[in-house]
């Protein structure tokens, strides 16, 4: 997979941008507030239909403009395809080769992207919701069906919480308990499958960059399970998990009914990050915490490329300024050796020079305009 051309119109502060990226590194340099993150967000949104930061879609449309459009020409399995997304009145429409896409699956077919932003670096210190979002982006990259499955769970959960608040009749609630348990078991098995693939790779990557003898562990912690020892989480199939969640929902009902929300299930999952058996959040240094995130991202890239047979597109937003020189050097060397197509932003070109090569496309970003530089 390769991005051949990116066109952005009225997306955040980018009024009209054409980029011809390099097959390897494309580096966008600019001062603060000029539109570097906006450029990456446009590309990320094109590839995932998830905004990188916006709460509301309308935030993506340039002030005073009617609609935002991002278009990418990709080379996918030898064929050129143009995918395009438009945001207008808070809603999006997607196009493949100029025609409205019949389904998201048609739209996504083969496009994979891994983004790395300074916000990601707080995922160790932050709350479980940040780690869940982090995990879910990886699950979605690996299993595109998860987009629908995750939404189905969220919807079932909202419906059930509404029933709890309304103190609906038991038979009505029971129907949603079961629907929720089914959708929840699917979320659990997806996250578990991803973490089974990822955690070993992440631990190995950490070993290369953590600069400590203590081993790092990345462990998925499904929330609210009380499985019997003879049937541990790792061995339970989806049916068993669904039955178990149903049972747990029942056990918590007296108290959940009182509070009007569901207190067990995948919506409260977490990923435990530990260094030498101790919580990285409480004990690891800032640099080590960043190494956790970096190792996770490297693992995700390796895992995706093993699963897809090709490297995903990598987007790095001003990460170098947040890393210490040694870890930054590791990352830059990793990027240049991986052969991946990568788009980086930075305020200081010298920080990322190690990822650059002869074929690097240097861009300058200023006041929402993006220009190609001589070198």
């Amino acid at each position, binding site marked *: 997979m390769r991005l051949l051309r990116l066109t952005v119109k009225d997306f955040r502060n980018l009024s009209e941008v054409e980029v011809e990226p390099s097959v390897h590194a494309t580096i966008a340099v600019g001062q603060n507030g000029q539109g570097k993150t906006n450029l990456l967000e446009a590309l990320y949104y094109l590839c995932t239909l998830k905004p990188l930061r916006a709460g509301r879609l309308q935030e993506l449309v340039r002030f005073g403009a009617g609609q935002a459009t991002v278009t990418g020409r990709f080379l996918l399995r030898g064929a050129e395809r143009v995918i395009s997304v438009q945001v207008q009145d808070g809603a999006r429409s997607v196009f493949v080769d100029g025609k409205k896409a*019949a*389904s*998201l*699956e048609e739209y996504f077919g083969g496009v994979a992207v891994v983004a790395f932003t300074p916000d990601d670096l707080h995922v160790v210190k932050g709350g479980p919701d940040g780690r869940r979002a982090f995990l879910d982006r990886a699950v979605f990259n690996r*299993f*595109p*069906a998860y987009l*629908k*499955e995750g939404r*189905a769970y969220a*919807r*079932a959960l*909202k*419906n*059930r919480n*509404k*029933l709890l608040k*309304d103190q*609906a*009749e038991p*038979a*009505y609630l*029971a*129907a*949603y308990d*079961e*629907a929720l348990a*089914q*959708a929840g078991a699917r979320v659990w098995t997806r996250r578990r499958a991803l973490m089974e693939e990822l955690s070993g790779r992440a631990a190995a990557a950490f070993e290369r960059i953590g600069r400590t003898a203590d081993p790092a562990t990345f462990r998925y912690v499904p929330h609210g399970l009380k499985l019997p020892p003879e049937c541990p989480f790792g061995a339970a199939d*989806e049916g068993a998990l669904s039955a178990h969640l149903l049972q747990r929902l029942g056990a918590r009902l007296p108290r959940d009914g009182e509070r009007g929300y569901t207190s067990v299930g995948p919506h409260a999952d977490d990923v435990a990050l530990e260094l030498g058996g101790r919580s990285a959040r409480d004990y690891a240094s800032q640099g080590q915490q960043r190494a956790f995130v970096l190792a996770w991202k490297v693992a995700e890239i390796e895992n995706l490329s093993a699963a897809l047979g090709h490297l995903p597109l990598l987007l790095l937003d001003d990460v170098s300024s947040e890393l210490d020189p040694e870890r930054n050097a590791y990352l830059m060397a990793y990027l240049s050796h991986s052969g991946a197509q990568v788009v980086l932003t930075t305020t200081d070109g010298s920080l990322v020079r190690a990822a650059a090569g002869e074929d690097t496309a240097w861009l300058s970003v200023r006041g929402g305009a993006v220009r190609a530089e001589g070198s």
Partner: protein
Amino acid sequence: MTPAPLNRLVAQLAKLPGIGEKTAQRLAFHLLRSPPEYALELSGAIQEVVAQVRLCPRCFSLAEGALCPLCTDARREDRVLCVVEGVADLLAIERTREFKGRYHVLHGVLSPLEGVGPDQLRIRELITRLGDSPVEEIIVATNPDVEGEATALYLMRLLKPMGVKVSRIAQGIPMGGDLEYADQATLARALQGRREL
């Protein structure tokens, strides 16, 4: 600026699902430009639909007379009843010409978020209907999304104790549907529900 009757038409058209203000205006201009007979026929058709089409008091599909043709057709089996969300689903199943039983249209699905509970659907009528007809099997053919699934589960719990066989339509790749056009969630589910040959 435009004459009031035209504005009223545009406002009415814009209330239709999927029709925005601009499209409504285009449709209104189209009606104005068309031969007057067309507009008269259209408004006549709308009035007739409203005046003559009713919900069948038995299955809640659409009917012109007392009962709908599906309920009065003596060749259909009373033994099997297919429960669907809406009339469009009934028509889709009818097009397959595979199903010989009768129907029951719920007119929606259980959706707490949208304020649709059991009382807003034709569920009570379904129960009453079971009391006075020889139904042995009920096929629940609601959609495979969260609300459709919850509705099916609700019906399952309600109907099973009544001694009637309840089944749910299978999920996965539609027969004759192309694998390549199935979405990934459906494909994943179909793979999981595979059977040995």
